[in-house]
C-alpha cells in the first residue's frame, strides 16, 4: 500500500475506490452517490410539478404519476438525504474527534456498498414491471395489492440499503464513544459530532422497526403470509405503526446532523463561540428522546381514538421546546458576533426563518383536531418540504460547501454559490409557500390531477414555476463543482479561519489523518490554540508507527451477493438459482473474511518524518 496514490491511472483509482476502507474516500463515495440520487429525485420532482402545472393535465399517466411520486419520496429520503448525511459524517466526524479512522473501517465500506446496491435495486424497478406505486409510506393493503414487482423492489431494495445504514449508525456510535483523542471529553465534542452521535443512536433504534416492517411486507407479497391481508385476519394498522415508529425518528435522523452543520457554520462565521453549548447538547438529546414518542401524529385520522390522539398531540408539541432552544441559541451566537456572509453562512441564515416556518406548521399539524383538516393535504407537503428542503437540504449544502476544501482541497466559487443560494431559496419559497394554501383550499396530496374550477390553478402554477428556479440553482451548483475541480486550485488547511480540529490538518488530510494524536484542551480546540497558543494543536503522543487497515474488496462482493439474491427471491420460479448464487457469494465472502486474519499494516515512523509540509499537529 502506498501512501500516495497520486497520479494513478483510471483503473487503479477505480479499484482504490471499490476497495477503500478510508473514511474520507467513503465520504466521497457517499457524496457522489447521494448527489446522483438527489438529481434523480429532483428530476422526479420536476415531473410531478410539470404534471401539476395546470388542471386536468395529461402530461403523464395516473399509474406513472404514482410511481414517480413514490420514487421521488423514497429516493430523496433514503438515497439522497441519508447518504449525503453519511458523506458529511464520514468526511468530518473522525477528523473532529482526532481519530485516525472510524471504529470499523471494513464495516464502513460494507455500509456504503449495501446502501449503493439497495439504491440501484430500487431504480432497476423502472425497467422491470414498473416502479413502486404505493407512496413512500407504502401503506398496506395498497402495497399488498399493488401489481407487478414495484413494491417488491421497494421492500427488498430498502431492506438492503437499510442494513447498510444500520451498520453505518453503529459504526459512528462506537467511533465517537471509543476513539476520541485525549482531552476530547463528551462536553468538548463539536456539535456536528454530537448530532452525528445522536442521529446514529436514532438509526440504531429506529431502523429495526423498518426492517421488520419490510420483512413482513416481503413475506406477505412473496411468500403468502397474511400480516396485512384483511381477509385472512391481517391488520393493516400494524404496518402504519411499524413504518412510523421508524419514520418519525427518521426525520430527526435527517434534521439533527443538519442542525450540527449549522452549529459549526454559525460560530465559525460569526467568529464567536456557540452560545449555550451545553443546552444545545441537551436539546439534541431531548429531541431524540421525544422523537420516539410522537410517531402516531402521522396517524391522527386513522381512528385511534381521542385518548391516543391527545397524548400524541401533546407529546408532538413538546418537541417545539428543545428545537426553539436551538433556534434562539443560534440567534444569540450571532448576537454580538462579527458576521461574514460566506456562502455556507448564507445557507445557514436562509435556514433559520425557513425552518422556523416549517417547524411552526409542524406544531399546527400536531394539534390533533386540526390535523383532521391538514392531514394528507398539500399543507403537509408544504410542512415537510419546509423542514426537509429548508432544513436538511440547506444544511447539507451548507455542509458540503463548508467542508468541500477539507474533502477535496479546493474551494468552490463563492460567487456562483451565492447565485445558487438565491435561485434555490427564492424558488423554494415560491414552490412551497403557496402549497400551505393549496392544502387548506382542499387539495389532497398524491393527486395526479386536480380539477378545473376549484380555485387551485393559480397556486399550482406558481409552485411549478418555483421548482424550475430550484432546478436552475442546482444546475449552477453542479457547474460550479465541475469548474472548480477542473481548475483544481489548492487551498490551505484552514481556509475559513475555523475553530475545530479538522481544520488543524492539511486539506485534503493525509490518509492517516493525524501524524500524532492531537491533545485537546477545550471546546473549539483550534480556536483555543489560535488565541492562546501558537495556532497549532499539540500532539498527545510521540511520533510513532501508525496502524492502518487494509483495503478490501469483500464489502463490495457481499453487497453484490445480496443484490443478486434479491432478484432471485423476487422472481422465484427458476430464478431461485439467483438467490442461491447471491447468498453463496455473500456467505462465501463472509467466510473468506473470517478465515483470513486481517491485521492491517503499519506506516513507519521514518516514512512519516519524510512526509513534508503537512502542517499537522506538530
Amino acid at each position, binding site marked *: 500500500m502506498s501512501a500516495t496514490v497520486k497520479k494513478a491511472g483510471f483503473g487503479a483509482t477505480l479499484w482504490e475506490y471499490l476497495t477503500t476502507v478510508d473514511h474520507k474516500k467513503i465520504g466521497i463515495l457517499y457524496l457522489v452517490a447521494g448527489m446522483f440520487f438527489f438529481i434523480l429525485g429532483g428530476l422526479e420532482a420536476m415531473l410531478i410539478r410539470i404534471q401539476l402545472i395546470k388542471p386536468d393535465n395529461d402530461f403523464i399517466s395516473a399509474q406513472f404519476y404514482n410511481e414517480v411520486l413514490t420514487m421521488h419520496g423514497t429516493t430523496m429520503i433514503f438515497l439522497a438525504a441519508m447518504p449525503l448525511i453519511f458523506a458529511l459524517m464520514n468526511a468530518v466526524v473522525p477528523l473532529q474527534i482526532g481519530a485516525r479512522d472510524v471504529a470499523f473501517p471494513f464495516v464502513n465500506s460494507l455500509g456504503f456498498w449495501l446502501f449503493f446496491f439497495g439504491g440501484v435495486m430500487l431504480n432497476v424497478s423502472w425497467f422491470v414491471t414498473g416502479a413502486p406505486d404505493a407512496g413512500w409510506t407504502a401503506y398496506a393493503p395498497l402495497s399488498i395489492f399493488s401489481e407487478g414487482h414495484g413494491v417488491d423492489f421497494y421492500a427488498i431494495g430498502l431492506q438492503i440499503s437499510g442494513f447498510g445504514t444500520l451498520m453505518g449508525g453503529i459504526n459512528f456510535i462506537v467511533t465517537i464513544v471509543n476513539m476520541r483523542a485525549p482531552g476530547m471529553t463528551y462536553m468538548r465534542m463539536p456539535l456536528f459530532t454530537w448530532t452525528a452521535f445522536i442521529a446514529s443512536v436514532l438509526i440504531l433504534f429506529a431502523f429495526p422497526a423498518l426492517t421488520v416492517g419490510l420483512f413482513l411486507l416481503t413475506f406477505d407479497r412473496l411468500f403468502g403470509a397474511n400480516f396485512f391481508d384483511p381477509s385472512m385476519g391481517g391488520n393493516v394498522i*400494524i404496518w402504519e*405503526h411499524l413504518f412510523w415508529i421508524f419514520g418519525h425518528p427518521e426525520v430527526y435522523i435527517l434534521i439533527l446532523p443538519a442542525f450540527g452543520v449549522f452549529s459549526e457554520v454559525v460560530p465559525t462565521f460569526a467568529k464567536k463561540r456557540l452560545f449555550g453549548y451545553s443546552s444545545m447538547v441537551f436539546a439534541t438529546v431531548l429531541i431524540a428522546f421525544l422523537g*420516539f414518542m410522537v410517531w402516531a401524529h402521522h396517524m391522527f385520522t386513522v381512528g385511534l381514538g381521542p385518548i391516543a390522539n391527545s397524548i400524541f398531540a401533546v407529546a408532538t408539541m413538546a418537541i417545539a421546546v428543545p428545537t426553539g432552544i436551538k433556534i434562539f441559541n443560534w440567534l444569540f451566537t450571532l448576537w454580538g458576533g462579527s458576521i461574514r456572509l460566506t456562502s455556507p453562512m448564507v445557507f445557514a441564515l436562509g435556514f433559520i426563518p425557513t425552518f422556523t416556518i416549517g417547524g411552526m406548521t409542524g406544531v399546527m399539524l400536531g394539534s390533533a383536531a386540526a390535523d383532521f383538516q391538514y392531514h394528507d393535504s398539500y399543507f403537509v407537503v408544504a410542512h415537510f418540504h419546509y423542514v426537509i428542503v429548508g432544513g436538511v437540504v440547506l444544511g447539507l449544502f451548507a455542509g458540503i460547501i463548508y467542508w468541500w476544501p477539507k474533502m477535496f482541497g479546493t474551494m468552490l466559487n463563492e460567487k456562483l454559490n451565492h447565485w445558487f443560494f438565491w435561485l434555490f431559496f427564492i424558488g423554494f419559497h415560491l414552490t412551497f409557500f403557496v402549497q400551505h394554501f393549496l392544502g387548506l383550499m382542499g387539495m389532497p396530496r398524491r393527486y395526479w390531477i386536480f380539477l378545473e374550477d376549484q380555485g387551485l390553478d393559480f397556486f399550482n402554477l406558481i409552485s411549478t414555476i418555483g421548482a424550475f428556479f430550484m432546478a436552475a440553482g442546482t444546475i449552477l451548483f453542479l457547474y460550479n463543482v465541475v469548474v472548480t475541480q477542473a481548475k483544481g486550485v489548492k487551498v490551505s488547511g484552514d481556509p475559513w479561519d475555523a475553530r475545530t480540529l479538522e481544520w488543524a490538518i492539511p486539506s485534503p488530510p493525509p490518509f492517516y489523518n493525524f501524524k500524532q494524536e492531537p491533545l485537546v484542551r477545550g471546546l473549539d480546540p483550534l480556536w483555543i490554540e489560535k488565541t492562546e497558543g501558537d495556532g497549532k494543536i499539540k500532539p498527545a503522543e510521540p511520533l510513532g508507527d501508525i496502524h492502518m487497515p487494509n483495503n478490501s474488496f469483500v464489502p463490495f462482493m457481499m453487497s453484490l451477493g445480496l443484490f443478486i439474491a434479491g432478484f432471485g427471491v423476487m422472481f422465484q420460479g427458476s430464478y431461485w438459482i439467483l438467490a442461491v448464487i447471491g447468498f453463496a457469494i455473500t456467505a462465501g465472502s463472509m467466510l473468506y473474511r473470517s478465515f483470513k486474519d486481517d491485521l492491517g499494516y503499519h506506516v513507519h515512523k521514518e516514512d512519516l518524518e519524510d512526509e513534508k509540509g503537512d502542517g499537522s499537529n506538530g
Partner: protein
Amino acid sequence: MADNTNSTNEKQQFYRKKHKEEMKHHVLTFAMMIAFTLIAFGLVIAGVSPMFTIPVILILAAVQVLFQLYYFMHMNQEGHEMPALMIYSGIFAAILTVLALSTIVWW
C-alpha cells in the same frame, strides 16, 4: 508492554481466582433461572387463574433477562456503562413498540 517482566504468574493466579469466583455466581444464576422456568411452567400447567399467572410469568421472564444481562453477559462489571445505556434505551423503544402494537391496533 511494561508488565512483561513483572511477576506475571502471580497476576495470572489472581485473575484465575477472580474468574473462579465469578463462575460460582454464574452457576447460582443458572440454578435460579431454571427454578424460575419451572415456576412459570408450573403455574400454567396447574391452571392457576390467568389474572394471576400472566403478570407473574412476565415478571419472572423480566428477572431472568436481568440475570442474563447482568451475570452471564457481565453487565455488572465496570466498562459496561455505555452498553447499559444503549440496552436500556433499546428496552425503552421496545416497550413503546410492544405497547402500541398491543393496544392501539384493533384485533
